[in-house]
C-alpha cells in the first residue's frame, strides 16, 4: 500500500472529508512525526508501536575495495518497535 492508496482508503471511510483534506491530513501527520524524530523525540502510538532514534558511535570502517581504513563518524538512525497489537495481528493473532 502506498501513501496515495492509504489516502484513498481513508477518504472512503471518511466521506465527510474532501479527498484533498484527507491528503493534507495524512501529510500533516507524517510531517509531525518526521519533525519529532528529527528533533530526537520519541513517538509512542499505543497498539501500533514506537519510533525513536538510536545512536551509533563513531567507528573505524574499511573501504571494501581498497581495504583502506576510514573513520566513520557517529550518527543517529530512526528505529521502529512494533507494539503488541501490531505484532499479534501480523502474526495471525499469536505471539
Amino acid at each position, binding site marked *: *500500500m*502506498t*501513501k496515495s492508496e*492509504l489516502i484513498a*482508503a*481513508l477518504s472512503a*471511510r*471518511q466521506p*465527510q*472529508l474532501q479527498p484533498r*483534506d484527507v491528503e*493534507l*491530513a*495524512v501529510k*500533516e*501527520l*507524517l510531517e*509531525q*512525526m*518526521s519533525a*519529532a*524524530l*528529527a*528533533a*530526537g*523525540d*520519541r*513517538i*509512542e*502510538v*499505543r*497498539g*501500533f*508501536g*514506537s*519510533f*525513536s*532514534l*538510536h*545512536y551509533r558511535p563513531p567507528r573505524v570502517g574499511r573501504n571494501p575495495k581498497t581495504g583502506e581504513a576510514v573513520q566513520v563518524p557517529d*550518527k*543517529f*538512525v*530512526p*528505529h*521502529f518497535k*512494533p507494539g503488541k*497489537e*501490531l*505484532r499479534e*495481528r*501480523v*502474526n*495471525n493473532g*499469536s*505471539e
Partner: protein
Amino acid sequence: MALTKADLAEGLFNELGLNKREAKEFVEMFFENVRTALAEGQQVKLSGFGNFGLREKNPRPGRNPKTGEEIPITARTVVTFRASHKLKERVEENARLHAEQLKSKVQANA
C-alpha cells in the same frame, strides 16, 4: 516528551481545522489502516517517511534468560521499518546542527 496520538490530533485541529472529534478519529483510522494492510501481508510505503515491511522468521531454539530454561521460539512474521532517505537526511541535518543536544535527548530516551 514523546509525541502521542493526542498530540497528532491536536496538530490536525491546529493546522487543518478538523474538529477535535474528527481529528481524533482520523489519527485512529490512519494507524488502523496501516495495521490492517500489514496484517493482510501488504507492505506499506509512505514516501518521504519510510516503508513498513514484513519478514518471515524461522523457528529457533531460545531460552528464558532468567531461569536458563530452554523454550523453542516458533516461526513468526515480524514488522520491519526502513526510514526514507529524506527522513534520515532530516535527522542527520539536525544532528549536525545540534549534536550535543540530540545526543543527550536520545540517551535520555533510551
